[in-house]
């Protein structure tokens, strides 16, 4: 038996309200102020860090599986990484990665 409908809506409202507050946090508080240069120097590492932390487990340990050299997603990810590095092109990167995964999975 899944959650009853009113509990589910309350759950979603909780996630929605909390997520909005997280998103609003600094945009709200610092809207009238300035972020100090020292903070800005640290914040410039946010994109590289977050993106890398999102990507690596999806390639190396997909679907919570253990590390394996037979993991097609790791090799497809590696091929896509080379394409991304050489071309800096979003569509080519996605295309190369998806094509590599399909070829490796169906080979």
């Amino acid at each position, binding site marked *: 038996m899944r959650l009853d409908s009113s509990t589910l*809506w309350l759950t979603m409202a909780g*996630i929605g309200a909390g997520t909005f507050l997280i998103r609003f*946090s600094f945009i709200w508080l610092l809207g009238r102020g300035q972020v100090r240069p020292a903070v800005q120097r640290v914040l410039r590492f946010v994109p590289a860090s977050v993106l*890398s932390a999102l*990507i690596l487990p999806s390639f190396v340990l997909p679907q919570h599986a253990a590390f394996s050299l037979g993991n097609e997603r790791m090799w497809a990810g590696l091929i896509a990484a080379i394409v991304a590095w050489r071309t800096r092109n979003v569509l080519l990167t996605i295309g190369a990665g998806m094509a590599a995964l399909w070829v490796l999975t169906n080979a």
Partner: protein
Amino acid sequence: MSSPKRAFAAGARDISPIILGVIPFALIAGISAVGVGLSELEALGMSYIVFAGASQLAAVDLVGRHAPVAVIVLTALVINLRFCMYSASLAPHFHGLPLHWRAPLAYLLTDQAYAISITAFGNGRMRHKHWYYLGAAMTMWVTWQTGTAAGVFLGAAIPKSWSLDFAIPLTFLALLFPAIKDRPSLVAAASAGALALAGHGLPYNLGLFLAALGGIGAGALADGGKHHAP
């Protein structure tokens, strides 16, 4: 960027290539919500209220596994803690805007809108930054809601063997390389990636958040010497 309209159009145009990678994710978010027993209205409501893909997928997964409400909410919020860092990073660019602007801009904050905007804002001075961001973020929002709705109504017609979920890390990958501009940012990315692998088994998806913090710290350390007062 001479007018608000042009800035809005530029944002919408710049985010468009990325959005191709989002469509499969949105479809999967819709399909999986209906798959665990949410009604069509509930599945659509989730997408409008939360509007954050990874946390929506995690929440749906936990609903399907009969997790307690507190765990569902906490897990989703931990996944979304990264928005706090985006919020801090964007705040100076929205400096001086009234609250009725900043609140909707905050609701529309996503990985994609952040990545595109912060890249554009970094390339010298730009006027109408909030219009550029709004163009990118609204395009993302419309795509996400349309994709989720399509997923909800198409149901599970798309075979799992297509591995469409793989388009998501590929999208982030294409954004990662432009973000690596120098040695300290390379150190940040490498450390965060290694920490994310090491912390993969941590509960509540804490691994991602801690890895990001660790990467930022490592980047700042690598950068350290250069910026200290002479």
